[in-house]
């Protein structure tokens, strides 16, 4: 008992080890000017939210990240989620798809359909969205290295449904810099990667106006072990690098910037997370106004998706994860998120069962419809503690951004291993804090039970690999192989020159070229990224 109490009073810090005072008061906000630091909701610097009416006008989009097995199985899960009140789709691809391999390749062995859905050609994409109105529902796709290829397959599918490409609405993650930093599903080296991303932004700005061309993501940076301030800073520094690359191409910042979107983690430290979102909006608004001289207020709005922290969940006593996810989701909502994924209780053990994912979705619905927190905008605004912490979060992140500027920008910082090392150090520090009980994780390093009762888990059979390879074989047989070869040739030419590659990729997708056929052409021209392992 004594030990437990000692560990509780040992240190009053956030999960990122930031010290917190016992009481905050007026003195903490000396010089604080609400009209400059907060403004009104829907107005610069957007600290209180990007919309004037926030959730009174429109709830956040309930968007569960989902995908497993073949396109057929995942399509069934999408219909299940939509039936239960989800209103946006979010595709989880399997590792071979994320890395640009087809299901019939040696490198895909053992991983087809395991951590997401296997997509090899546009035919799989057609199955994935069967019976779903792609002109009405928004789709988010978590894909990065091969983002341009999967976007082309998606747009070709929208077209096949009888809609113009311009009807497509949704998001492609397409954030390669954080792949180098944290998530690691890369393809080409940084420079050609940036060229492809700018091609995509240029193409979508002209032809797919409702598409979010990139989702600049802190989620994975946090999952890899960063602190909250590092998550915020590295994400915005990545954003700066993308804006710079587009401006360098000659694009008008006020044309493309309104379609840049963001994606943050919602970790366990409730207030630290809320201030992270508030500071994010204010910092980005200032960066876009002061550094990039934007005139369009929409260019200055940081719109973001939130996912509760997978890394905060425990394999031990998994039902406790429902509670963790609720606290995290509430932070996302109080922080003003535009869309939200809530993790399922069984996700430290496997992909979620239908039951588990329904509880996760219901968690959002309970927050939205029962808790009353949506009645007013930014309900915590004006609190001494929240405003002080928001200021400190902004300062800490701004200092990191300055450091990255001084190193020569994010691409250079990545080449130097700077963010990677910062994250690895923070992750190791946190692990040690758990092991010496400086931080408590209930059920894991304290309040442990001796015997755990196993819960029902979703199983994905190894047979999926053969099933998917067979489907792919059938597509290869029935497609016009001459057309495939010709479209791949044109893609090669575009990659070598300065022409935008998106129209060429669309032609490849329409001809049912496989993901890896397109990827191989691109890697042939652009090369392949090789990691420098830092630990």
């Amino acid at each position: 008992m004594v030990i437990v109490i000692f560990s509780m009073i040992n240190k009053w810090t956030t999960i990122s080890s930031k010290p917190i005072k016992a009481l905050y008061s007026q003195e903490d906000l000396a010089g604080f000017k609400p009209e400059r630091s907060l403004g009104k909701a829907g107005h610069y610097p957007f600290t209180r939210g990007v919309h004037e009416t926030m959730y009174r006008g429109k709830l956040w989009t309930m968007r569960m990240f989902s995908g497993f097995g073949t396109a057929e199985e995942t399509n069934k899960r999408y219909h299940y989620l939509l039936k239960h009140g989800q209103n946006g789709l979010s595709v989880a691809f399997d590792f071979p798809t994320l890395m640009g391999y087809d299901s019939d390749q040696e490198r895909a062995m053992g991983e087809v359909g395991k951590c997401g859905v296997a997509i090899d050609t546009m035919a799989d994409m057609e199955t994935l969205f069967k019976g779903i109105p792609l002109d009405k529902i928004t789709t988010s796709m978590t894909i990065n290295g091969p983002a341009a290829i999967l976007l082309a397959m998606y747009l070709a599918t929208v077209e096949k449904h009888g809609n113009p490409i311009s009807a497509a609405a949704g998001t492609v993650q397409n954030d390669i810099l954080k792949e180098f930093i944290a998530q690691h599903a890369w393809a080409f080296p940084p420079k050609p990667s940036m060229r492809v991303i700018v091609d995509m932004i240029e193409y979508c700005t002209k032809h797919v106006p409702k598409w979010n061309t990139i989702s600049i993501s802190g989620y994975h940076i946090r999952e890899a072990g960063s602190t909250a301030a590092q998550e915020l800073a590295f994400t915005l520094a990545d954003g700066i690098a993308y804006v710079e690359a587009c401006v360098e191409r000659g694009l008008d910042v006020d044309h493309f910037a309104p379609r840049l979107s963001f994606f943050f983690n919602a970790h366990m430290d409730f207030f630290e997370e809320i201030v992270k979102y508030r500071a994010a909006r204010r910092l980005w608004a200032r960066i876009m106004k002061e550094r990039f001289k934007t005139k369009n207020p929409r260019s200055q709005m940081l719109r973001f998706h939130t996912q509760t922290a997978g890394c905060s969940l425990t394999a031990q006593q998994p039902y406790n994860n429902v509670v963790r996810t609720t606290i995290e989701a509430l932070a996302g909502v109080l922080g003003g998120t535009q869309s939200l994924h809530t993790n399922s209780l069984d996700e430290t053990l496997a992909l979620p069962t239908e039951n588990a994912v329904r509880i996760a979705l219901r968690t959002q619905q309970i927050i939205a419809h029962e808790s009353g927190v949506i009645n007013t905008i930014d309900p915590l605004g004006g609190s001494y503690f929240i405003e002080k912490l928001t200021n400190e979060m902004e300062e800490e992140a701004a200092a990191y951004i300055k450091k990255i500027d001084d190193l020569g920008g994010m691409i250079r910082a990545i080449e130097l291993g700077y963010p990677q090392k910062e994250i690895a150090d923070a992750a190791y520090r946190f692990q040690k804090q758990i092991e010496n009980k400086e931080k408590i994780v209930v059920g894991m390093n304290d309040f442990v039970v001796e015997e755990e009762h196993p819960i029902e888990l979703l199983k994905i059979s190894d047979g999926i690999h053969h099933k998917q390879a067979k489907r792919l074989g059938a597509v290869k047989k029935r497609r016009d192989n001459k057309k495939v070869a010709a479209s791949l040739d044109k893609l090669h030419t575009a990659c070598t020159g300065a022409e935008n590659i998106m129209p060429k990729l669309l032609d490849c997708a329409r001809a049912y070229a496989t993901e890896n056929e397109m990827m191989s052409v691109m890697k042939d021209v652009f090369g392949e990224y090789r990691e420098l392992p830092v630990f």
Partner: protein
Amino acid sequence: MVKGMVINKKVRILIAKPGLDGHDRGAKIVARALRDAGFEVIYTGLHQTPEMIVSAAIQEDVDAVGLSILSGAHGHLFKKVIELLKKEKAGDIIVFGGGIIPDEDIRALKKIGVKKIFTPGTATGEIVEWIKKNVR
């Protein structure tokens, strides 16, 4: 060579990330904890094939290989690494691992020769102790 020198040689461990799985937080933490505990640690980096891992294990003359797998591909990848080690006459290298691996799969992996699987929530000290007891 004096016999004592051989005995004093540090235990060498290869920490490897097989397959396409990009989750390396655990592998890096374990690599660092083992290094801090005085072992010689080589970390392969991501996206390694079983062939690459076995060839690194032999070239680096390691005593044990630790595989980190969070992608559900453990059934395939552990088996492949163990088969290849045997084929290369390096079956004496101990194979252990960690990641998101259900209990019933752990039993199956032990049957094919995986010495130990560490699951989420394991303290690094526990891994260090296990290596001290079970490797050389």
